Each structure stands twice: as C-alpha cells, then as structure tokens.
C-alpha cells in the first residue's frame, strides 16, 4: 500500500492539457471502454455474469480475484479473443468510445487492431526481433524500410527494450530472456498503435526483477494508452493500477464483479467483506 505515491506520480506526468476533467469517481470523464452487464458463455456454461466495468482513458484498470473467477475470460471478451473458442458467446455490451464492439457488421480484426493484447506467457513468433515488431504494422500497408525502422525503434523504446536489443535486431526473438520476450511482445503490441492494451497476467511467468521492469513500463505506457490488466497478484494491482475491479466466483461457478473502485479505496476501505478478506490475504 505504501507504493501508492508511485501511482500518483504517474498521474502527474500526464500533460496538463490532456486531462482537463477533475478527478474523483463522481466527476470522471466518459470511460474509454465499458462493459455493460456483460455475460460470457462457453456453450451453456456462463463463465462471467453481468459485469459492468468502466475503463478510463490513460489509466490502468486492474481486474483481481481468486483463480477461476473469470478474470481472463472477461479480459478476452474485451477484444473478442473469445471468438476463437467455438461455442462462446456473450450477452450485454462491450463499448469502445461508445461503439458496440459486438454489434453486427463490426470487424473482429479491426477490434483487435484497436485493442492490443499481451499474454500470460511471452509468445514471440519464431522470427527475428525486428520481424516480431514489424509484423503488425506490415499487415496494414506497405511501409518503406526507413519508416519501418522508425516504427520498430520507437516501439522497442516504448517497451524499454531498445537499449538491450538494438545491436541484435536480426536475432531470433525466442533467444531473449523471459522478461525481454514479454517486453518484445509489448513492443509488438504497441507497434500497431492500439488505443487500449489488455494484459493477461503479464508477469506471472517472470522473475521479480523482470516483473518490476514490466510494471515500470506500464506506468510509462499509460501516458498513451488505456491499460487493463488481469492479475492474481494483489500487491501488483495495488502498485500499478488506478482502478481495481474485484471478481468472485458465484455458487453456479459464474464470475461476477463484486466491487469496483479506485485502487486506493479497494485496498484501504473495501465495501464488500469478501474483498476485504481477499485483499488482506485471508483466502484465495
């Protein structure tokens, strides 16, 4: 909880002109992304039940809760990654800038370009570091070599990886350490200039040093992106996030959101008894 100042510092770095709206939940600006009583089903099984979650622009929203409570499922429904699972469908709404992402006629491919994702295990392609980053931009058009060099450098810098790899861009991305691989995946995700970056337990496969690096990186990234992170690590949520959603599994095994608030509130004066038990480490 003592890390809270870090978060506050992160906020103040945002240029004044970019954030005219006053702080506090009551006067919060319209959220960048929002789910409205979203339920996610795998065939007949309801994995997530009626979650309404706003995600503010240039803030980090953390989703926490015990394992199996539907955190990842919720996150994956935000960029329609669940579409890949046959039999999955949703009820309710997911909006980005007020636009319904599941409306008929919306292109999944476009949704995923605007909402990038970083996965639990680093999953670089077995290509060179350069090619990993260039992969996304190349999908969207012919880009000249110098322009692509630019994009690759900028993305790797934003992922705080440039200094470590600038001399070995032609080496395989698989040859990097786990933490570097994860930052490469972040660089790959930001190279397509998404508006939102989803992170599914991005540090769970990493050692503490690499974890700290990624967390610092997230503070940098939130200046430009809306970030949603799923984590089972409460300290991490407390350290990095601005808002926190607490999820629990209901008796019918569907995950529901039991509390959502500013991170500080969740960790200092939670309203729900279960949240209090969870964040104080009494179970989960």
């Amino acid at each position: 909880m003592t890390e809270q100042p870090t978060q506050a510092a992160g906020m103040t770095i945002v240029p004044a002109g970019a954030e005219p709206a006053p702080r506090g939940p009551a006067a919060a600006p319209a959220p960048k992304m929002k789910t409205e009583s979203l339920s996610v089903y795998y065939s007949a099984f309801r994995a997530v039940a009626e979650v309404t979650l706003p995600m503010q622009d240039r803030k980090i929203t953390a989703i926490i809760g015990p394992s199996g409570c539907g955190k990842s499922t919720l996150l994956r429904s935000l960029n329609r990654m669940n579409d890949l699972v046959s039999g999955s469908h949703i009820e309710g709404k997911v909006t980005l800038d007020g636009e319904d992402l599941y409306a008929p006629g919306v292109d999944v491919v476009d949704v995923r370009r605007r909402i990038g994702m970083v996965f639990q295990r680093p999953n670089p392609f077995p290509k060179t570091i350069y090619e990993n980053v260039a992969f996304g931009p190349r999908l969207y058009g012919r880009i000249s070599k110098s322009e692509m060099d630019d994009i690759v450098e900028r993305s790797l810098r934003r992922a705080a990886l440039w200094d470590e790899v600038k001399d070995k861009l032609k080496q395989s991305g698989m040859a990097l350490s786990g933490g570097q691989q994860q930052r490469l995946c972040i660089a790959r995700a930001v190279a397509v200039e998404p508006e939102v970056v989803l992170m599914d337990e991005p540090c769970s496969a990493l050692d503490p040093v690499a974890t700290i690096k990624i967390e610092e990186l997230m503070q940098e990234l939130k200046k430009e992106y809306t970030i949603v992170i799923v984590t089972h690590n409460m300290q991490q949520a407390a350290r990095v996030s601005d808002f926190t959603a607490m999820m629990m599994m209901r008796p019918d095994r569907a995950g529901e959101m039991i509390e959502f608030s500013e991170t500080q509130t969740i960790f200092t004066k939670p309203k729900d008894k279960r949240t209090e038990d969870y964040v104080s480490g009494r179970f989960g």
Partner: protein
Amino acid sequence: MTTMMAQSPRERMRARRIQVSQARENTRRIVNAVMLGLTGVATLLALIPLVWILIEVFARGSQAMTLDFLTQTFKPTSMGGGGIWHAIVGTVILIGLASLMAVPIGILAAFYVVQHPNTAIGLMVRFGTDVLSGLPSIVVGLFVYTLLVAGRSYSAISGAVALAIMMTPIVLRTTEEMLKLVPRSMREASLGLGASEWKTSFSIMLPAAITGVITGLMLAIARVSGETAPLLFTAQGSNVFSTALDRPIASLPLTLFKYAVDPDVTRNAQAWAIAMIIVLTVLILNISARLIANRRSK
C-alpha cells in the same frame, strides 16, 4: 471527448501513425475469404477420387460378382473364365502365415522398446520400424527374393515372409503405443509380487494393451491385403488351386493385376470384381480398427 484530446501527445503521435487504408483493408478481407474458401475446395477435391474409386469399384465389381466366381477356380475365358477360389485361399494362407510371423515379433519387439526406450537397441528398433514401414514394397519383394527364392523356387512361404516384413512395423508401433499407456505401477506391482517377467508381460501388460494389438493387426492386414509388388518375385501367383507352402501360390491382388492388364474384357470385368473384394476387406478392417480404437479412447 475527441476535441479535448486534440493536442494530447497521443494524438500527435497518431498523426504520423500507420494509415489504415480502406482499400487495403478490403483486400485483406477478400484474400482471407478466398484462401480459407480454397482450403475447403481442396478438401472436397481430395475426397473426389475416394468417392469416385469407391463408386467405380462397386458399380463395375458387382457385375462380375457371382457365386460361381467366388467358388470356382481358374478356367480359360472360352470356358466362362472360372472364378477366384484359388486366389482367395492363397491370400488367406499368405496373410495367415504372415500374421503368425509378424504378430509375435511385433509384440515382443514392442515390449523391448517400451522397457528399454533409450538404449542403443531401443532407438535403433524405432528407426528400423520407421525405415521398414517407409520401404517401397517392391524392395521388400526383391529382398525376400534374394533371401529365400534365388536358387530355389517361388513359394507361398516366401510370399508370406515378404508380407510379414511389411506387417511387423505396424503391429510393433500400435502395440508400443498401447503398452506405453499401461501404468508403470502396474508392471512394478506385478513384479513386486514375485511374478516373472513373462507372467507380468503376458498376463498383466498384454491384456491391458490388447486393443492396440488387435487394431494393429487389423491395420497390418488391411495394409498387405492389397499388396502386389512384394508378391511378384515371391509367391509369384498361380492359376491352380494350391495349399503347398513350397510352391507358387495365387493371391487376389496378383490376379487383379494380371486381369486388369489383360486385353480380354471378361478378365477386365473379373479384375473389377476382385478389386471390390479387396476394397471391401480394406474398408471393413480400417473402419472397425478405427471404431475399436475410438471406443478404447473413451
């Protein structure tokens, strides 16, 4: 919302971001749809020969298929052409003998491979299994010729050996796969109770893996029941009824080959009837092996 973010660093960055052109996006969607569609077309295209062959074989084969055809032996076409009883018996003898050789060797070698997977011999056996199953059948025929026929006579037994060589790797591999699924603890419990290796292997492990052995044998028989090339230089084929193991013997695929390239249309029609018998056998064996394996995995 958008207006107030006009000067944000992100918007400035966005200004020089990659332009997403609608034309290119459309091209991507079209390429996607076309290529995915083509894989479906490929699947249909690949299945056409299967359906086509089955239709032809059954339509043409049923025409010459009579009881006489199945129960009589060879006669010249001037006398009606006769039947293929001699070839049916020959094939049964060849496959029966081959199974008697391939099954024990395949099972015993599978025991070896499962119990000693990483020894030099174990690895060599695996590689040998791969090589044998990939060996052109005509090469197997030549090998058995040089081993058993050269200097002697074409014989049923040499034909059976050639088929056994082709069956062994199949029996070995399916048995091995099943034996690997038998829990280690089961073997150790048996040995720990004082049972001998023989008893453990044959009364504990083999029964647990029996479906593997059976499906393996069925697939192996399916594989060789249409084999022609390895029999050309071994069993050689014959027009007379024979059960002698040291003499040439008839077989269905050899007869099919001979009749198919015969200029006489009666023989051609008979060739289709033989093809129907072989294809039916192969289909039944493959499908039942599949069903047994599926039931086992459930």
